[in-house]
């Protein structure tokens, strides 16, 4: 009963949030809608007994990812409306719907069927966090480390990209020279 109510409530809220996020022309609306959507998604994780994942979702997305986005947005005038050329919305919408349906048909079909066996079955009686820890640090240790290294690399890349004076051209030539060359070549 509660689960049903909660599911539909969250589902509607998340869908609406994300829809606003992709359609609005106001960057702040998009950011807010996206953030609320991310936080609401953690609600699903709590319903699905993945408390740890839910908490991580909140912390990582709201605490880090979107805060970073917000931080990046401060470079731009966020109160101004985003001007975009309008493409052919119908084609885009139909394409996305089509691909989504296909994805579901192909990937979800075997999952819903019965012939799937759990590799790392959930053990009753111990908390989700502990289970996650056990599986993460035994079976998935190497991917975990790789992910850690990836994050480190991304962090360094982010620092280097944003920190260095990259507003000058990366090649030794400036833009006008490059443009001239392009003209000569073409």
């Amino acid at each position, binding site marked *: 009963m509660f689960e049903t109510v909660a599911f539909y409530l969250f589902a509607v809220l998340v869908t609406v949030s994300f829809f606003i996020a992709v359609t609005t022309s*106001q960057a702040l*609306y998009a950011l807010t809608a996206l953030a609320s959507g991310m936080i609401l998604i953690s609600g699903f994780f709590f319903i699905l007994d993945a*408390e740890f994942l839910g908490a991580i979702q*909140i*912390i990582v997305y709201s*605490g880090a990812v979107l*805060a970073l986005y917000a931080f990046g947005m401060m470079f731009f005038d*966020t*109160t101004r409306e985003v001007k975009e050329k309008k493409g052919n919305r119908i084609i885009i919408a139909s394409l996305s719907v089509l691909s989504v349906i296909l994805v579901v048909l192909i990937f979800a079909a075997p999952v819903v069927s019965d012939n799937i066996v759990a590799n790392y079955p959930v053990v009753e009686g111990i908390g*989700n966090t502990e289970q996650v820890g056990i599986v993460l640090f035994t079976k998935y240790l190497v991917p975990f480390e790789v992910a850690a290294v990836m994050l480190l690399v991304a962090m360094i890349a982010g620092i280097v990209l944003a920190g260095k004076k990259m507003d000058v051209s990366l090649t030794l030539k400036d833009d006008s020279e490059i443009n001239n060359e392009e003209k000569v070549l073409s």
Partner: protein
Amino acid sequence: MSYIVGTLINIVIVMLIFSALAGLGTYFERKVLAFMQRRLGPMVVGPYGLLQIAADGIKLFTKEDIIPQNVVAKIFRIAPVITAATAFMAAAAIPFLPDFEIFGIKVHPIISDINIAILYILGVMGVGLYGLLLGGMASANKWSLISSARAAAVFISYEVVTGLSILAPIMMVGSLSLVDFNNYQAEHGWLVFSQPVAFVLFWIAAFAETGRTPFHLIANDHEIIDGFGTEYSGMRWGLFFIGEYANMFFISFVIPLIFLGGFGDGSFLGALIFLLKVSFFFFFFLWTRAAWPDIRPDQLMWLCWKVLMPLAVINVVITGIVMM
């Protein structure tokens, strides 16, 4: 059904008490700061100025709610609510007192003992960032924008320290529930003795998370006017205020729960001492405001990334080695 009713009652009580406490907090702050500066503080409204809270409240509620022309109106309106709401959401996982029995009814002074309480509190307090962030960004005011940028930077940095410093106690306790923390400490002694570094780091980070004085740069009155709150007036501004003070109270509850033994074995004396500890931590927020200077944002970042975070990491590593 009784569970729902009990929880609802709990929620209402917590909301009411802490809304009132947030108001009282401002009164205490003014009084304590005044005493420390050899002043008297509010004295006129009511006996010893006690009704000042009511006066302020009336003022805030009746003041005109100004929405400036160039702001992003919807976000501008929502932002203060986020701050206040997340502050109260964080309270859901905090055991304010031990279970007790009154009039034959068993009372659980915790709204929901979820088993990832600490992560939940961290996360929700992190969400509280959005109030400041969005409020500042929507304000179309450069001071507000600077304040938002500072808020984002400070929160991102200090969440790292908070998380890392609290990791070592979590490793020792082996649970993320605050009730488990309390019980562990009742059995094994206070964590502050085994984890002094983590305690100090968490305390420092708590100052940053609540934006109190040594780190009072998000809404630094003398630098950037009132930061995110510059364009706000009336009750919207008041909501920011309530959020900040409620946050201070909740942090004051969390620190003793994690490090200072909480309410111990759950006796009446333990509860009393717990409240004393909480009061001390809240008082300390005010105390530092009177005594300490603010530091610059770059110093704050420096402190976080080059001093506190390495310390936290070393602490985690040492704890791990010792526990192995």
